[in-house]
């Protein structure tokens, strides 16, 4: 499956891009997509433990299988504050 990936905030700045497309084997998961993105942008690898994933308007976990037409969003942690 071919999947669009969108990058936000720190990830957008680190890579210099807002979006890219990755090709995954059928049944490829969010985790597999992350690995494909890191393959092209190794500077993101260090952020894996902090990253949140979303598809559409919902958070998804890393085992979610991607479907054609999915747009996967990679989020740094949300802003927080006390």
């Amino acid at each position, binding site marked *: 499956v071919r999947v669009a990936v969108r990058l936000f*905030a720190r990830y957008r700045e680190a890579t210099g891009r807002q979006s890219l497309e990755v090709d995954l084997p059928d049944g490829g998961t969010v985790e597999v997509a992350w690995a494909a993105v890191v393959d092209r942008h190794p500077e993101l690898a260090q952020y894996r*433990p902090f990253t949140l994933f979303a598809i559409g308007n919902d958070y998804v976990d890393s085992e979610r299988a991607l479907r054609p037409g999915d747009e996967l*969003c990679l989020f740094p942690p*949300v*802003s*927080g504050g006390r």
Partner: protein
Amino acid sequence: VAPGDLYRVVEHPLSADVLAESVASPAVGGIVIFSGVVRNEKDGRPVKYLEYEAHAPMAEAKMREIGAEVHRRWPAVKSVAILHRVGRLEIGESSVLIGVAAAHRGEAFEACHYAIDTLKQTVPVWKKEHFEDGEVWVGLQGG
């Protein structure tokens, strides 16, 4: 979504007066407004200005979910409005406004507190602090 409810990500300055008007109605006895404001320092380091970025459609969807949960938990709440501003914000400007209108003040205070705490955890908005000598995206250090 109740009448008067409003959930938006915007690029213009926020007005607490406009927000209060939008949640007001004749059955309301108390309106609580929370305004999150840009502070002039971070851990003693002077802040020049902040930049906010959002995934706007998802942020609005998450704010709507917060409003729905408020109505479910506090049936006396009549209206909820949540606005988040994005772009460059100067010291003293409001980045987020939450208005909760209820028959009585107790529910309005509780619901507003719940709404801002939940927003900070679930709404996809990021903040970049600009200092005299650098800039940093908030939220990464320490996870």
